[in-house]
């Protein structure tokens, strides 16, 4: 019996034959491809659908026995997370999607790893609480929202979703199941009540780890009380007043506005319906303002208005309300991003929205960041630049740039790559960091600004995972072994 057959047999014994597949086509659907294109295809050899941490534990023991890499994945591959770097076993956690606890008295929620963030968010919301909401499609899993760099609406006051995570259940590479933070008390009468239990905070060990230190199987969130009163306001500035726009956002962020979002007008120009931005205005700040009573709301609205107007901003009626009415990525130009079609219906040119790297930088740097990217796009003749900036509570920005690009146009793709590389170099030289750690997409230099951290992480990785079976590419260890 060959090794693959033995592994398959062992896996089927653990989860049952229906939840294991080595079909090349089934595996291909999990390939590492951050867009609905196929820049890089790295297919797992086997896909397994576990339902419990105990099953994952046994799978990891098998993977250690054979030295086979294991990559965990939720349903979403928005940025290509969770794709394997090279073959091995892929664990699709989508079937582990139960909500285990919603405690309205102590304002806590616990869900399994594969539960979508939106599903949990809805259930929490129905019970008078809320979680800052991720800005992605149907939402990644609760784990991805927590430990990947998910910056949600509400981030201006609360930061990343991880700031609301109080506990995790994790299966370590050895197969041990551990609970850290508040999850240590999940099965006690108090429940998952406090993140900072005895000893150091170990949640951070698994944050941004891309599954390298363990597979998270449960997440405990601290929930927020749902405010009763909301207002959504927008202000805009002309193209030569980006600095003033940025200063207004920083000042509003410092008074803990629920959310501030930054865009250029192109987002609205793409949309066929809804309010438009006046011709003379270019940069837009959208504010989500809340209050537990009407007076509080009015006071906050007034403060935001005074700040924006003092920096020359113009109030835009309806824009803010429309922006937050529902939160799909609805600025995508539908007719431009349809995939290829055959004879029915009529052929539509192939074109996609291409994402540049997602960046983390001081909010105060936004004018330079934007101007650099806009200038490079102009130089490389790339059109349709959209900027999305989440103003965070530490006065940093989580910024993403997108452009529209026909990926059948090899010259345009080449220009896009040149533009991206030139920007990356400039950005990294300043000390910038990326939201995503996505080998091989994000350049090697991502660790260049933090060599000591990388060294420590590698040592921890060696201790936790001596066979390097879990998400082995995460800390550049792939090439070394």
């Amino acid at each position, binding site marked *: 019996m060959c090794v693959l057959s033995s592994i398959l047999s062992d896996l089927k014994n653990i989860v049952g034959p229906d*939840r294991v*597949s080595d*079909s090349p*086509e*089934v595996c*291909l*659907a999990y*390939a590492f*491809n*951050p*867009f*609905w*294109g*196929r820049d890089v295809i790295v297919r797992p050899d086997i*896909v397994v*659908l576990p339902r419990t941490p105990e099953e994952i534990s046994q799978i990891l023991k098998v993977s250690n026995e054979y030295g086979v890499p294991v990559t965990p994945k939720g*349903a*979403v*591959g*928005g940025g290509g997370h969770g794709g394997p770097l090279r073959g091995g076993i892929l664990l*699709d956690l*989508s*079937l582990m999607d139960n909500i285990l606890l919603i405690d309205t008295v102590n304002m806590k929620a616990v869900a399994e790893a594969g*539960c*979508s*963030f*939106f*599903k949990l*968010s*809805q259930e929490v*919301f*129905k019970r008078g609480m*809320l979680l800052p*909401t*991720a800005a*992605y*499609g*149907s*939402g990644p899993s609760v784990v991805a929202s927590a430990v990947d760099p998910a910056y949600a609406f509400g981030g201006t006051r609360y930061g990343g979703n991880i700031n609301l995570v109080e506990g995790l259940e994790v299966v370590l590479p050895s197969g041990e199941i551990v609970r850290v933070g508040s999850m240590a008390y999940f099965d006690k009468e108090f429940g998952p009540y406090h993140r900072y239990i005895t000893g150091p905070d170990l949640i951070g060990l698994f944050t941004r780890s891309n599954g390298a230190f363990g597979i998270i199987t449960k997440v405990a969130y601290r929930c927020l009380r749902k*405010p009763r009163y*909301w207002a959504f306001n927008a202000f805009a500035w002309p193209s030569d007043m980006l600095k003033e726009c940025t200063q207004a956002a920083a000042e509003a962020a410092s008074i803990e506005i629920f959310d501030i979002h930054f865009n250029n007008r192109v987002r609205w120009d793409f949309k066929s319906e809804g309010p438009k931005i006046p011709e003379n205005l270019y940069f837009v700040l959208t504010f*989500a303002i*809340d209050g537990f009573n009407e007076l509080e709301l009015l006071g906050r609205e007034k403060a935001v208005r005074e700040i924006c107007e003092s920096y020359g901003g113009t109030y835009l009626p309806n824009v803010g309300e429309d922006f*937050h*009415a*529902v*939160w*799909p*990525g609805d600025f*995508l130009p*539908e007719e431009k*991003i*349809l*995939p290829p*079609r*055959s*004879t*029915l*219906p*009529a052929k539509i040119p192939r074109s996609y929205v291409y994402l540049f790297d997602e960046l983390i930088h001081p909010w105060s740097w936004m004018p330079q960041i934007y101007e650099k990217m806009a200038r490079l796009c102009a130089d490389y003749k790339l059109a349709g630049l959209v900027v999305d900036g989440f103003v965070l509570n530490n006065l940093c920005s989580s910024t993403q740039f997108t452009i529209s690009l026909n990926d059948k146009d090899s010259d345009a793709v080449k220009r896009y790559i040149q533009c991206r590389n030139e920007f990356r170099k400039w950005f990294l030289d300043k000390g910038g960091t990326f939201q995503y750690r996505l080998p091989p997409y994000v350049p090697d230099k991502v660790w260049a600004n933090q060599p000591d951290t990388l060294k420590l992480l590698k040592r921890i990785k060696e201790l936790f995972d001596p066979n390097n079976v879990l998400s082995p590419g995460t800390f550049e260890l792939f090439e070394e072994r």
Partner: protein
Amino acid sequence: MQCASCYYKGPIVPHNWRELPPFEWSPPNKKCPSYEYFKFRAFSPVGRGNLASIVFDDPNFPVTDSLIKIVYTCTGCGTCSEICKAHDPWTVIWALKEYLTSRGIKLPNPLPKLFANIENCGNIFGTEKPPPVNRNIPKKGRDVLFTGCFMRFTQPNLIETIIYVLRKAGLNLAWLGDEELCCGFLPGQQGDIDKMEKQAQQNVKRLREAGASRIIVSCAHCYKALRDYYPKLIDTFPFEVVHISEIYARLIEKGKITFNKKLQKKVTYHDPCFLGRHSKLYNEPRAVIESIPAVKLEEMERRKQWAYCCGSGAKAISLCYPDFSFSISKERLLEAKEKANTVVTSCSSCVLQMRRAAAKLGVEIYVQDISEIVAEGLE
């Protein structure tokens, strides 16, 4: 991007801070029937989209049985494209089927035989003698009924019912009868557009010769084919195509259909995928049902654009993958049963699928075509 909205549990968008998402943004948890059954991402819309993007660009990509199964277990329900307007996965999957067909693949059984039947006999059943219809119906006229071969062979009494109802309302329909051919929807949906085009040409020629200006269709698949696909395949398509529920709704509004009987029953309504999501006809069938005295319409949670497939899967799933098909039907029937003892629908494929599934699975629910409940109210 791979947001997974098309199949992942939970709404498409979150709450808007003040309230939960409106109905149109909040599909129920189960979205894609084939993903729910097979569980692997490859069987989801985005998974098939990934495969499509690779297959389209690689003429040598091996077409294996596994690939065929992944592609042809898409029910075509279209929920994914209702969710994802940007990537429109259902159309991508349809284009993939068309591409694979153009490469001469072997379709899952029994599709090749059914397509040969269409070629040889003009219907999917492969026989030239359909069951008799006990009505004297003219072959020529302005308003022509198009029954489709599925209804013609499996539910001939429904044709009689339609003629009965419309004659009572003063509308005398013509019908091509044995001259009418398969609409071509089945091969078209499975990627053989040429075959659908051929059926379209022959049917349009015969409808022209019959003097038709308005075509009335009861089967949701025929309706979709005639209303939306034929005009794209035929240079001149000078017909108005209306669904039977639209005709009933208009006649009720004009007072030409009046009900004599109180039915005193609670019913629920199942939106056929190709009448609802694919054709956006949601209100007319409901208006018809609600106009029948003493009928109470109880809506299922999954309704209108979020209605779950009945299991027929544009006929192909029930024919090629019966176990999968019945598993979908079971879920839909039990959902309907929670609301009422009668489920009404507006497509002959849905009617037959749900009747067969109810009998096989032992679900005690009465399945009625919309024409049947209208006729019941008239008696």
